[in-house]
């Protein structure tokens, strides 16, 4: 019963995640940027823009300039999350790729640092007056959800082991549309439910910052307005109408 319910949930959530995200990304891509608005000083070449974007996405360059505490906590959380996610590839591959095998121990520690990063970010949200002022209930809930996912995952590793072989069998089965039996385990059920929730809210929430940053005109535009005429379709129309 639970196996079937989770199978349906995962299929629906994944579908919603993929379709929702693609829809959102296509909206961003289709919306024109009529004016050149890079925050300067900005790179003048495409290569320079790729570098700027890489520094922004990998090292959170602007946040580093803004606030070291937020940068530190944010970095700790995101880097840990990346490792943890990669570690989880072992539940979806058979045989497990060598590099995924290699990062397993780091992935475990990353679970702990991810939790620490999240708690740090939440503390900032609760304790700093300015950040508390701008926080909505959903900002807190998002952190609670991620803390829940991290904590339940760590509990299964360090407190009450779940049958990971069976879990792996279940997800490999899902990938081939063959529903296997999921171990009946409260922690696991909680962990998976929260992951489903995360997939569902992703395309409708502030988690859109992940694709959004790549479409931010202040970061992805070249600084070359004098050298190259930049004209969007709707702005070009004004010209043909009036001149």
């Amino acid at each position: 019963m639970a196996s079937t319910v989770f199978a349906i949930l995962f299929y629906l959530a994944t579908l919603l995640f993929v379709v929702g995200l693609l829809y959102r990304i296509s909206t961003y891509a289709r919306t024109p940027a009529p004016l050149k608005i890079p925050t300067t000083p900005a790179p003048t070449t495409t290569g320079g823009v790729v570098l700027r974007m890489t520094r922004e996405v990998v090292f959170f360059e602007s946040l580093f300039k803004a606030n070291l505490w937020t940068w530190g906590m944010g970095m700790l959380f995101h880097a840990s999350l990346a490792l943890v996610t990669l570690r989880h590839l072992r539940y979806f591959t058979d045989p497990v790729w060598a590099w995924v095998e290699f990062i397993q121990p780091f992935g475990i520690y990353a679970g702990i640092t991810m939790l620490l990063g999240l708690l740090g970010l939440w503390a900032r949200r609760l304790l700093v007056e300015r950040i508390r002022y701008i926080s909505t209930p959903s900002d807190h809930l998002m952190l609670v959800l991620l803390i829940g996912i991290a904590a339940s995952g760590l509990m299964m590793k360090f407190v009450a082991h779940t049958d990971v072989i069976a879990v792996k069998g279940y997800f490999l089965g899902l990938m081939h549309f063959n529903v296997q039996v999921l171990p009946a385990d409260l922690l696991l059920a909680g962990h998976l439910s929260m992951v489903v929730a995360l997939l569902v809210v992703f395309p409708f929430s502030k988690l859109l910052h992940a694709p959004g940053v790549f479409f931010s005109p202040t970061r992805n535009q070249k600084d070359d307005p004098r050298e190259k005429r930049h004209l969007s379709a709707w702005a070009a129309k004004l010209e043909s109408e009036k001149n």
Partner: protein
Amino acid sequence: MADIVAPAYRTIPIIPALKPGAMEGKGPFVASEKLNEALGFPGQLVEDWHDKVIAKMGDMLSKYRSFRVFMDACVHCGACSDKCHYFIGTQDPKNMPVARQDLMRSVYRRYFTIPGKLFPKLVGARDLTREVLDEWYNYFNQCSECRRCSVFCPYGIDTAEITMAAREILDSVGYGQKYSNEIIGKVHKIGNNLGLPGPALIDTLEGLEEDVKDATGIDVRFPIDVKGAEVLLITPSADFFAEPHIDSLIGYAKVFHATGTSWTLSSMSSEAGNFGMFIGNYDQLRTIAMRIRQAALELGVKRIVVGECGHAWRVAYSFWNTLTGVGDGADANDRFAQMLQKQLDHRYKQPAHICEFTWDMIQDERLTFDKSKNDKHIITFHDSCNVARGSRMGDMPGGQFEIPRNIIKAVANNFVEMAPNTTREQTFCCGGGGGLLTDDLIDLRVKGALPRMEVLKNAVDEHGVNFMATICAICKAQFTKVMPIYGFDRKMVGGVHQLVSNAIQLGPK
């Protein structure tokens, strides 16, 4: 005016505590029916403003990727929350960039996202009520569109884009701001922001020629409407009579004179400023910029040079090519742009900043200076926000910081920097930019100047600074007004070309 006092300097610039509501209802005067209608906006707030606002918002979301992405991408991390000069000066939490954006974002969430439609309270979504609209008017007219927050945002969210969208939406339902709309009306009617008619302008320029002759004994010309001149100078109209602006205009004329450059002003297009950007209206931005194209075509000039004006330089550098074809690199079949670009001389940057022009001439050794003429000054440089964060000079990113400083060092002996986290791309707004340089906002302007005044005070105490150079007409006007309130001499502020003017050697070499 009597009750306006400067906020106290913070000994250590700690982040201020919040004072909710401190600037509520302190927005600028609303535009009159006449002013609005002259620009094609409804005269006053329309009956069905609610539906019109939502429809306009949808329209803007489909036209501007910046607005679209910025509405979604914010995670409320707070990186920007202590970066705005108006927040620092007023302590009103709604002047934090993220909170200012949220005034708009809360409505976006309610009407354009599923979670906001289903669970408004949960995601901080709000119905668009008259109170919300009034709040927009109030706080989106307390942003100078200086882009300082966008430097620090991990997603590059630029509050200026949201402020511009908000003002555009408000104008579209007849809820415009008096100062900006009045000025745009003057540009259309008379040709410049200050409403200086052609004959008065010609008179002024003749007077200037006499003044310079009296002071130097040399016939420096201030030509206007000269067909076939090489350079068309487009400068903020404040340069024609406001102090200290006019001293920089004299500086430009001396540079042209000393280098033997044929140049001209245009009576039809006697304004570099473009308040169309401040109100976020593409049509106004374009129509105002078109006058420069028209003047360039009529006068047949080879180069277009822009005087000391911050937002004008952003519009000229970043937008003119898009709006009017003043620039390079248009498609061969782009007849509109090619018509002008074929006329311009592309050995030079089009358009060029007057500082680029002067610095090129200094490097070519076509100018000589007596630096000791500026020895009475210990000079610092205030980077103006639109130049710093919305434009460039020269070939390298950051040239907008180096070139004006290089000029100052070439014409004067004493130059010192202010605190590094308040210069270059991290510079603080003067407190009067973005269409807020009006007496009905004097309280906001004084408070917004606090961060700059603090570091200036340090530079004065530590290095004896007695001159702050800047290349923006709004900065000059704002500082002249607020600096006395902070206990500084208003004559401390001036242009870079004012220093050039002091030191330049005009006689035979």
